């Protein structure tokens, strides 16, 4: 009963790639091109399944949120072009743990499901629930001879965290997330993205002075992994991709102390909370994010879903308020050498016990057809793993940083949130991080705490 109630909330609430579900943003906050996309004719299917006549898909979206609408269009077109009947269940974000994982003990599993690569890895791939999707990469997407491999940006799938025990890919991406500092270009007219931490702090000071002393940084402090951004973003610039992951999985915990970058990152992190909006530590998501959308704070650090979530909020609020979305990445702190940008791939995986793997894989390839995938940008206002599709206006700055060849791609939080099924973060990182942000411990205590708590954690894990 409890579980049912909570899962309803899990599906309805946000802190998610796309935020509040349901309802089309209205007025100025409606995206152009939504109707056009939904009414466009269906593109051809490049690789048609030869035997499967059915496909069972458990979706991480709900039917009426923007991504759900794009999926509905993809499903409708796939059925129209191949005759394969798609049996879809709109399970929402928690469907993979609450429905899929228990189902793996039975033979009653979906053929196809989607989630971000870290979650699929931790919950489904590691216990052996997925199969290789390597053959999808050679399938045609329905644009002449073009294959999946040719249209996809390799950094979106070809990384160690997307390989199963046999070294095969277990996920085909169709949506990319990243994170950034967000601001309203119409409000901060002459604002130039800071190049150094000192410039960033100066920008905060200026915004604070302009705002009559109100904290210029909005932060929903009740979500532990929103609090995780600051330290991980800065630390990644000292240690590069895989560094944090390595430190966190060090059984002795000493890596936190032997690499001086972590202390420096903690020191830089400790400078930011002074600019947090009053009430960030007694927040109830998404109240503080909405305060940012209402113009109470100038900056907000959150994922690439910020525009779609706040657009929806402003649309429902009415009153004609709109944001001209600008974003920038954390500047390089002094002494840091790795210029990084975070990414998270969301995509399709096929279960090991799938009864219709052929159809599941064909659908995964069809999703990447430009006329289908375009909906993820045009309707859902998200980034896609193809470089040749138009970028939503809201995400232009982010996309530019993303395509910057100087920047090294790092998995979101460097994968810290998925270590030991998420328990490492819950037990070790989150409590210490909250204390650091609240100013209850200093950077040295934070790093020492990471070392000892992490060692204790791994000891208890046996």
């Amino acid at each position, binding site marked *: 009963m409890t579980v049912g109630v*909570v899962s309803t909330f899990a599906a309805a609430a946000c802190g998610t790639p796309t935020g509040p579900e349901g309802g089309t943003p209205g007025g100025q906050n409606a995206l152009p091109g939504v109707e056009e996309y939904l009414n466009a004719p269906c593109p051809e299917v490049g690789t048609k399944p030869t035997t499967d006549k059915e496909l069972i898909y458990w979706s991480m979206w709900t039917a009426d949120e923007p991504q759900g609408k794009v999926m509905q269009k993809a499903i409708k077109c796939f059925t129209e072009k191949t005759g394969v009947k798609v049996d879809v269940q709109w399970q929402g974000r928690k469907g993979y743990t609450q429905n899929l994982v228990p189902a793996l003990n039975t033979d009653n599993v979906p053929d196809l499901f989607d989630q971000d690569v870290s979650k699929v890895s931790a919950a489904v791939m590691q216990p052996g629930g997925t199969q290789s999707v390597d053959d999808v990469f050679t399938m045609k997407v329905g644009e002449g001879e073009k294959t999946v491999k040719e249209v996809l940006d390799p950094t979106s799938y070809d990384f160690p965290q997307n390989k199963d025990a046999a070294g095969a890919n277990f996920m085909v991406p169709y949506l990319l997330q990243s994170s950034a500092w967000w601001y309203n270009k119409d409000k901060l007219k002459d604002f130039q993205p800071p190049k150094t931490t000192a410039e960033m702090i100066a920008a905060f000071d200026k915004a604070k002075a302009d705002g009559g002393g109100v904290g210029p940084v909005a932060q929903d402090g009740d979500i532990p992994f929103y609090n995780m951004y600051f330290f991980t973003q800065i630390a990644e610039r000292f240690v590069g991709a895989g560094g944090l992951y390595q430190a966190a999985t060090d059984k002795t915990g000493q890596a936190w102390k032997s690499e001086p970058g972590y202390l420096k990152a903690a020191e830089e992190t400790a400078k930011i909370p002074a600019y947090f909006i009053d009430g960030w530590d007694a927040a109830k998501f998404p109240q503080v994010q909405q305060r940012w959308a209402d113009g109470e704070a100038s900056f907000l650090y959150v994922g690439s879903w910020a525009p779609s979530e706040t657009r929806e909020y402003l649309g429902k609020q009415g009153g004609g308020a709109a944001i001209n979305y600008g974003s920038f990445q954390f500047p390089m702190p002094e002494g840091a050498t790795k210029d990084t940008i975070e990414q998270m791939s969301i995509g399709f995986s096929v279960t090991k016990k799938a009864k219709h793997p052929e159809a599941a894989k064909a659908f995964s390839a069809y999703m990447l057809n430009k006329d289908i995938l375009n909906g993820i940008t045009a309707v859902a206002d998200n980034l896609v793993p193809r470089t040749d599709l138009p970028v939503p206006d809201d995400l232009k700055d982010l996309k530019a940083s993303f395509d910057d060849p100087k920047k090294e791609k790092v998995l979101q939080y460097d994968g810290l949130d*998925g270590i030991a*099924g998420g328990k490492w973060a819950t037990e070790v990182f989150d409590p210490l991080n909250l204390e650091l942000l609240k100013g209850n411990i200093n950077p040295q205590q934070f790093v020492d705490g990471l070392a000892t708590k992490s060692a204790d954690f791994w000891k208890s894990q046996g």
Partner: protein
Amino acid sequence: MSVLTPPPVRGASAPRTGGAQGEHLKRKRRLFWPFMIPTVALYSIFLVLPTIATVYYGFTTWAGAGDDPNFVGFDQYVALWNNDSFQFSFRNTLIYVFVGGVGTFLLAFLFTMVLRDMKGGKLVRAILFFPNIVAPVALGMFLGFVFKYQPGKQGLANFFLESLGATSAKFLDPANVTWVVTASIMWASSGFYITILMAAVDRIPPYLYEDAEMAGASPWQKFRNVTLPLTWDVVGVAGVLWTINALKIFELVFVLAGPGTYSPPNSAWTLGIFVFDRSFGSNGTPDFGAASACAVAMIVLVSVLVVMLRRLMRRDAIQF
């Protein structure tokens, strides 16, 4: 367990009594198992076996995703004991049981003292019961707005504080949220216990109160010397009900202390949230071994508390 044995039927072993009554008893005996079997079967399938399975899984590590449980003995319990999240959960749950319990029953007694001879007492009773008909999740979402902290746009609680000239409080700060939830639970559940206690109070013959009144007893003396002794067994049962309910508090904390989608910071957890987090993982692999071990700890805890409470409340029943 005694239910499982057929009731001793008078005369069953002595067929010589014979007659209509003997036939009736024979038929009754014949019906015993047809009625009993479905109950035993359903009870076993949906309660006894899952409980045994939970105890078993508490001795394993198991992701529950198509893999096999791996027997590890008491490791899960040792890990549980050393785990910060479990310690927070344990502490908070005890706060809810004891502090919340004392508060709820004080409120309930206070109301029973005044409601008995208050005009419109029945209506007040109904109103006090209202929070019980609202789902705890909805209550949690609602209280999230009541306890909102936003200078200039405060929630109801801070609005009142500010109107009274006091400074506003960060109710939902993880450091404070346990106390806020304790107060909310007292507010939400006292109506239920008032209803139970008042039902017992209504059974007390009015002449006892009239007598006490004539002797010049104060409301407190009436409560102490008439109400409490004559409702003692009901108070005991209500105490047991409270203990069981408080031990499994989940939804209200989950939605009030966190975003409602993901687990709140672990310093605000209850044992129920611990089990949920380990079952459905904050970000991935479920850990059914740890979840089951914690569930077993909850069963043990509730058993110990209930036995203690029953012993503490044991008195000779007063006939009236």
